[in-house]
């Protein structure tokens, strides 16, 4: 009995993974054929990009500040408080900027995509759209995915910048260190692989959070309770996958640029 259940669950997971792969691929390929709904792309860019600005700026600022605060005490033991700037900037650019922005935007937008599309499914609006001759994949999914990819890229840059600013404020105002030294250290130790790593990650994370949000939204069954379940699945799976893919990407970039680092 237990074996049967494990077997069924394993098959279900593999099947979901297969469905998701086809879904994500189709959404990507839709960008290379007509019709492309540019107005929807712009609208979603506004909702995802501009709408997420406050949470990304605030979380970036606080994270940079906390990094400076926590690292200062430890670095002081080695007489290395001067490298706080380097520590904050590298951590923000390589890891925390992309991952935090990905997770924050996923909490805000993957959930909204899953619940919005899920509600459309249970009220037959998706079927109505298909009956009116419009492909929901092209009209609803593809614009959301590409708006997420484009916006997460810029949001991550902002998060990095505000993280460094936050670290600087804490360093100067609370740790009473030299601000010029902080900025010099933050700037001088950034290398090309750090930038590559920091800017490639949001492209993947944007794709992950939006495709998972839309995927679970369009698979919704079981009325309003089903919408709730889809929303939870979307946020949890998107967040976990972002952290897992972050590990893979870090490993790949470190291997590829080992001589630079």
């Amino acid at each position, binding site marked *: 009995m237990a074996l049967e259940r494990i077997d069924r669950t394993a098959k279900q997971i593999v099947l979901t993974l297969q469905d998701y792969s086809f879904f994500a691929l189709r959404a990507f390929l839709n960008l290379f054929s007509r019709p492309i709904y540019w107005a929807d792309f712009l609208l979603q860019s506004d909702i995802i990009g501009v709408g997420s600005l406050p949470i990304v700026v605030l979380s970036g600022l606080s994270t940079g500040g906390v990094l400076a605060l926590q690292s200062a005490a430890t670095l002081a033991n080695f007489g290395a408080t001067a490298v706080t700037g380097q520590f904050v900037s590298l951590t923000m650019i390589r890891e925390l900027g992309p991952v935090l922005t990905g997770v924050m935007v996923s909490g805000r937008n993957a959930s909204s995509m899953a619940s919005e599309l899920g509600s459309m499914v249970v009220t037959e609006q998706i*079927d109505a*759209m298909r*009956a*009116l*001759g419009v*492909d929901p994949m092209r009209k609803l999914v593809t614009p959301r995915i590409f708006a997420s990819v484009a916006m997460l890229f810029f949001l991550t840059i902002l998060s990095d910048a505000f993280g460094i600013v936050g670290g600087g404020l804490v360093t100067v105002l609370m740790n009473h260190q030299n601000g010029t030294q902080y900025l010099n250290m933050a700037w001088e130790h950034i290398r090309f692989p750090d930038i590559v790593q920091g800017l490639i990650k949001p492209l993947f994370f944007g794709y992950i959070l939006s495709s998972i949000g839309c995927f679970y939204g369009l698979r919704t069954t079981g009325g309003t309770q089903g919408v709730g379940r889809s929303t939870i699945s979307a946020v949890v799976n998107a967040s976990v996958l972002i952290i897992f893919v972050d590990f893979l990407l870090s490993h790949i970039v470190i291997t590829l640029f080992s001589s630079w680092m």
Partner: protein
Amino acid sequence: MDVISAIPQPAPAPDAPLPVLAFQHVSIAFGGPPVLEQVSFTIRPGETRILLGPAGVGKSVLLKLANGLLRPDTGCIELFGHELAYAREHDLFHLRTRTGMVFQEGALFDSLTVRDNVAYQLIQENVSDEEIDARVHEALRFVELDQTFDLFPVSLSGGMRRRVAIARALIHKPELLLYDSPTGGLDPVTSTTIIELIVKQRDVYRTPSLLVTHRLQDAFTMCTHRFDQDSGRMVPLPAHQTDPNTTFLMLSEGRLIFDGSLHKLVASTDPFVREFLE
């Protein structure tokens, strides 16, 4: 039980117009017992077919099969002469624009105004705003809801939403109309208003249609009334007369057990039909 699909259908007359929609031995299941089994019927130009059956018998599934929103497990469905069962989804979008579908609860896009809902297809086709406004006003006047042009669906009553959904289905001048329980859950007065609109559509535009309902009263009203264009109202046909182009289908346990006119339906000796009628 007398199963229509199992009986060889009489061959149509050689000069009979080609069917707009044809189901041939269609079956579908969703991981359990079949929802529809060996269903066969046709809709010819000018015909209105009313699909009767108790709730949960597969009527809405049949309607979604008719325009390719669902695919059958076996059998063949031809819409305007095109086979749907194995067509690519991409090819079906164009075919669906030639049909109009009214969903059970209206299925209006709640983030769009009534104007944008009704004009949805026209907007996708980049029709000019002036033409869109004119055609939306015309469609809304047909369902007598011109005053709702700028409203959002959330501010409309259930009956008004169905009427807007009818306007949305009609605006593109469809070649086949599919109504999914258009009066389900409505009070008798609003139901009559909706049926009057459907009769008006039938008698004014003569668009072939398939209407799903479990309300016998609505089906009988459609069959025994016509739309009088002079008075702008639905009026009863003379006693013992019925609309010759309005006929019935009945589903029971996934099988089509009746296909014929109102007279044949009333005279049927099938125990399920009798139970349904009584």
